């Protein structure tokens, strides 16, 4: 047999093992799955992008329209902002105002008709009053009235600062308390 003149028309024998054939088939499937996935994702993203872009354009146009309409209402807006600014402060100021008429009435009740020499209120809202009564009994009665007011929570922390008993029977009292305003 002369090799130079022989022609082998038979298909060359596949050298792939059955394992490789199975692997090749799986690889084919996987490659098509990945390809289809990539194409689908691209398509989905493309469509999504176009939709979002058009929505964005619409919103930008709406926003510009609102900004323009609000600009026409700018005077109201400025007034409103100024009102809010002042209200925030006024609220605190009004809340901090004390009704000292209550303290006047409280002092009048405590005195029970006795003459008052003087009274003062310091920055800590502490009332300090100086009273002269003409007998020990009246002094005791005054202290009882203070105790009653304290019991009714109209004042707190009453303190007898000083007590002077005069030769004429009069009693000078200096009392400090904090009224509940």
């Amino acid at each position, binding site marked *: 047999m002369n090799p130079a003149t022989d022609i082998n028309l038979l298909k060359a024998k596949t*050298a*792939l093992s059955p394992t490789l054939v199975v692997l*090749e088939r799986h*690889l*084919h499937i*996987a*490659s*098509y799955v*990945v*390809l289809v996935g*990539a194409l689908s994702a*691209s398509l989905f*993203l*493309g469509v*999504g*992008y176009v939709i*979002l872009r058009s*929505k*964005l354009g619409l*919103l*930008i146009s*709406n*926003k510009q329209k*609102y900004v323009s*309409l*609000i600009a026409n*209402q*700018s*005077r*109201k*807006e*400025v*007034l*409103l*902002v*100024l*009102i*809010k600014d*002042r*209200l*925030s*402060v*006024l*609220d*605190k*100021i*009004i809340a*901090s*105002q004390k*009704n000292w008429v209550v303290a*006047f*009435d409280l002092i009048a009740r405590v005195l029970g008709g006795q*003459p*008052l*020499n*003087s*009274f*003062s*209120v310091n*920055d800590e809202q502490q009332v300090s009053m100086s009273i002269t009564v003409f007998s020990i009994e009246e002094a005791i009665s005054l202290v009882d009235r203070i105790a009653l007011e304290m019991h009714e929570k109209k004042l707190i922390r009453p303190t007898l600062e000083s007590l002077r008993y005069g030769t004429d029977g009069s009693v000078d009292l200096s009392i400090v308390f904090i009224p509940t305003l």
Partner: protein
Amino acid sequence: MVLIKHIIRQYHGFVIAGSILVFSGLAIFTAVVPGIRVTLSLYEQLQTLTRETETLASKLSYLESLDEDKLTHQLQDLVGALPLDKSIPSIFATIDGLAAQSGVSITDIVLESPGSIATGSAINAAAFKSSGSPELTLSIAAQGTLDEMRHLFGQIQNVRRLLSIKNFNVSINASGFVNFRGGLVTYYRALPANLDQSTQALPVITEKEEVLMGKVASMESLSQAMISRSPVVSGTGKTDPFSR
């Protein structure tokens, strides 16, 4: 070369599948992943813009529901209670009016550290107290009866030029005549330096604030004519909010 052709011929199935995988991988990393990032970013922009547009829509709706004349009037009332500057004449007018109403005689008024007379230009940080606005402290001496003093104390809370009593001393002589000396505080507040009118949500007047405005409006004004009613709004390109 023959060997390569042989390998390709023998493993052409692997070659095609591998090429598809490589192409798909490249497509995923160069197109799909950046595309996801861009789309997500666009989505976030859309969300932000949606919120801003909703805010603007509600802001516009709220502004349209407001009556400009009513707002102007309300601001004038509030400026009467809390002037734009120290407005010292209005303090004196208020105290004078209070004295006249209650019957007490004012014997002395001392304005402590008034500083710059006109505007809030000289306000320093120390002037701002717990109220959040600069304060002016006054010392007042007055004479009258105890009832007149009581009436004065009652009226102080009901005048529009807000005053707070910080401390006082009352001494009563044998005839029942009262000498009063007290420390009062009054307030003022300049316009905000910058009124931001961007896309921020507009503050809405609450029911509580409506009640507060009603309370201020019901307070007696003893000095309204002396309080500046033409504030200049700076930083916004707009000047007088009261102007027509």
